[in-house]
């Protein structure tokens, strides 16, 4: 049904290598794109700036991290710090009159330049050790930001983001920030979809599978590990910049703490390591599950007239959230992307289940 393969015959290599060979997949992507484009005009403001905007931004960040974790197999527990560098660079640049378009690129480069130091650790260690060193660097960056008044903004430690304009359009209200985030997300997504088909992406995959083996077949692990950190940090920095300008609008050091890093890692893993689609699913689940559980428990308690203590009522969502992460890892380690894939495969051959292996 739906995902019909019948009748699709490729006559050129280019046609066979396209991103979505199936008509239905293309239509689905088109429909989602159309929905996202039309959202500010069809949906309520709450859904646009309260849900879609953060979702797009967090998905972009998860994509950037996924390049490193899924693509190159390097663990990074300090991605929040990378985003903080981008956010703070862009805010300071914009406050000093640099146009936002330029500030975006500069803050991406700034993050990349510092992010590559995280990468230096990856040259020496891997696995749990790498996780620990990135974690430690997260703390060091946090400390530096909050203890340098020049960066964090003095005693109050908060910096308001001035109004900026992109390509001559002022980024104010709900619509413009949303489109900026959407544009960034689209660029990052297209990059991630295509990176696997480049020599860069294949080199990363070789390193992911076994770095020593990659070195032996002529892939420079030194170069590509650093490049992976560079690229991923650049994306992180750019997302951090847009996050500050379009969503946070006032930056304080605690917005980029370890919690953010762990949230992002959870998004990548629950979504599916290395999967572009998974990053979107993962971001949605991790961002909105606590909110959803909170509302659901609240409604249940109110609806059924349950008298449970405030402490228990407010901690049940936390338990469910932690439990959900555990459950996903146990039931489907390949993540939400794999679950979607299962559904898709089911329909691919429906109703002839027997042909499915």
């Amino acid at each position, binding site marked *: 049904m739906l995902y019909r393969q019948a009748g699709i015959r490729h006559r050129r290599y280019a046609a066979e290598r396209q991103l979505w060979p199936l008509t239905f997949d293309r239509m689905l992507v088109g429909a989602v794109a159309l929905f996202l484009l039309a959202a500010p005009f069809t949906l309520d403001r709450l859904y646009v700036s*309260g849900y879609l905007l953060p979702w797009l931004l967090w998905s972009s960040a998860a994509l950037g991290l996924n390049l490193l974790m899924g693509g190159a197999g390097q663990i990074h527990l300090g991605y929040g710090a990378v985003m903080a560098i981008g956010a703070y660079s862009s805010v300071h640049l914009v406050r000093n009159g640099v146009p936002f378009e330029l500030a975006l690129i500069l803050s991406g480069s700034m993050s990349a330049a510092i992010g590559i130091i995280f990468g230096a650790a990856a040259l020496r260690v891997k696995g749990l050790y790498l996780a620990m060193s990135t974690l430690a660097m997260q703390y060091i960056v946090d400390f530096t930001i909050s203890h340098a008044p020049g960066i964090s*903004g003095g005693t109050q430690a908060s910096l308001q983001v001035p109004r900026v304009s992109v390509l001559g359009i002022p980024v104010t209200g709900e619509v413009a920030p949303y489109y900026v985030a959407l544009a960034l997300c689209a660029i990052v997504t297209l990059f991630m979809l295509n990176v696997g088909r480049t020599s860069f992406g294949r080199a990363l995959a070789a390193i992911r599978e076994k770095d020593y083996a990659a070195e032996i077949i002529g892939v420079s692990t030194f170069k590509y590990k650093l490049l992976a950190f560079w690229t991923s940090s650049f994306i992180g920095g750019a997302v951090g910049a847009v996050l500050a300008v379009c969503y946070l609008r006032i930056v*304080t050091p605690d917005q980029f703490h370890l919690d953010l890093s762990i949230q992002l890692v959870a998004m990548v893993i629950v979504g599916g390591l290395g999967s572009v689609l998974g990053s979107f699913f993962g971001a949605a689940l991790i961002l909105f599950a606590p909110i959803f559980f909170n509302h659901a428990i*609240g409604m249940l308690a109110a609806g059924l007239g349950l008298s449970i203590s405030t402490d228990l009522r407010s901690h049940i969502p936390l338990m469910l959230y932690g439990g959900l992460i555990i459950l996903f890892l146990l039931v489907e380690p390949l993540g939400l992307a794999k679950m979607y894939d299962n559904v898709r495969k089911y329909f691919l051959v429906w109703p002839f289940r027997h042909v499915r292996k």
Partner: protein
Amino acid sequence: MHIDRRTFLAGGSALLIGQVPLPARAQDKLIKFGAPQDFTKVYTFVTAEYSQGQRDYITLFNERGGIKGFKVHLDVIDHGNDLPRAIEAFERYKREGYVLVDPLSTPMARGLVTRALEDKINMVTTLSGRSDAADGTAFPYVMPLSPNYWSQAALIIDFFQKQDKDLKGKKIVLVHIDTPFGREPIPIYQALAQKLGYEFQAFPYTPPGNDQSAIWPQVRRARPDWVIFWGAGVGQTVALNEAIRNGLPLDRMSSSVWLSESDMEVVGKDATKGVLKFEAAAGGREPKVIQDILKEVVAKGKGAGPEGKVGTSYYNIGVMMGAIQIEGLRKAFEKAPDGPYTGPWLNEGLRSITNFTADGLLPPITTTKQDHQGGGRGRIARWDGSKFVAQSDWGSAYEDVVWAEIRKYSEEFKKSGK
């Protein structure tokens, strides 16, 4: 995982059922207040009790018939000190016509300042948030409605001075958590040090303060005349423990407002005898409002939490804030009885509270369009082994120094958004 027809159907129907909208609650004749607060992350030490007090007071108000046929609906939800969740709540409140939010968290309050100012929703920053938000001209929609940290610091120093007659040549030490919240009072202590001639020294400890073992030996060796410990939750209990172990005299130690009966219980009720703290509202069950709540709310089984918590310091602060918010509402109704019932409408009321004491629970609070702090009055109380006993009358101190500081930062905010 392997998907067959049965799991697919089950999953699909579960999704469908999830889509069925739950019946919406009745929404007519309600003034809506939002209380997204941190029940699960950093502010756990205060939120449960604060929220209980706030809800009990609002229940009392509603039970008594509300005002002009309107009742107050207080939406309590956990934001877990996570900004996206606080922003989601804020956006939802904005859509559903809420007129007030009370995030009770300094980072969230800071993160929401821009939105509150732009969307004209009153944000109450109870004993938290930016101290310079007391300047109503710079922050029209940010309402501390309680003594900020600078006023607290000034009052504590004032109390020390009254005890010692003269602070010249004395040494005052501040042991504080190393966050913006902990660093905030330092300018006031420095400014007052110049004025009064005492020596000031600050010792920061890393948040959340569960290990201060290396700080207190230094404090002891500094031989301070007075010690102020400035933290929250676990940092406070550890500070007290360490002070006792280092043999510092507890009756010459004072905390900011964030010290409660449960902290004293952790350290030991008798061991902590003599500790001082700043008080923004009277503690205990004696105040008339608390008695009313006990009679009209708790006795009828409508209390929001365990009865044993009624009358604790943080509970009473919750009651205090509920009462001030409701008083602002009354004033708003006085000014414009027919609404429209929006953020700016309530703002007018919240900014014109005069000499409100909630039947003796709090010092008289008077807000104006300039002063959102309400006068910055409070008092110092001492732990006597079972409760905090007031040591001074309600009052304020060095408000000129405090306001010089407030203006300095609010001007900066107006100018550069820092």
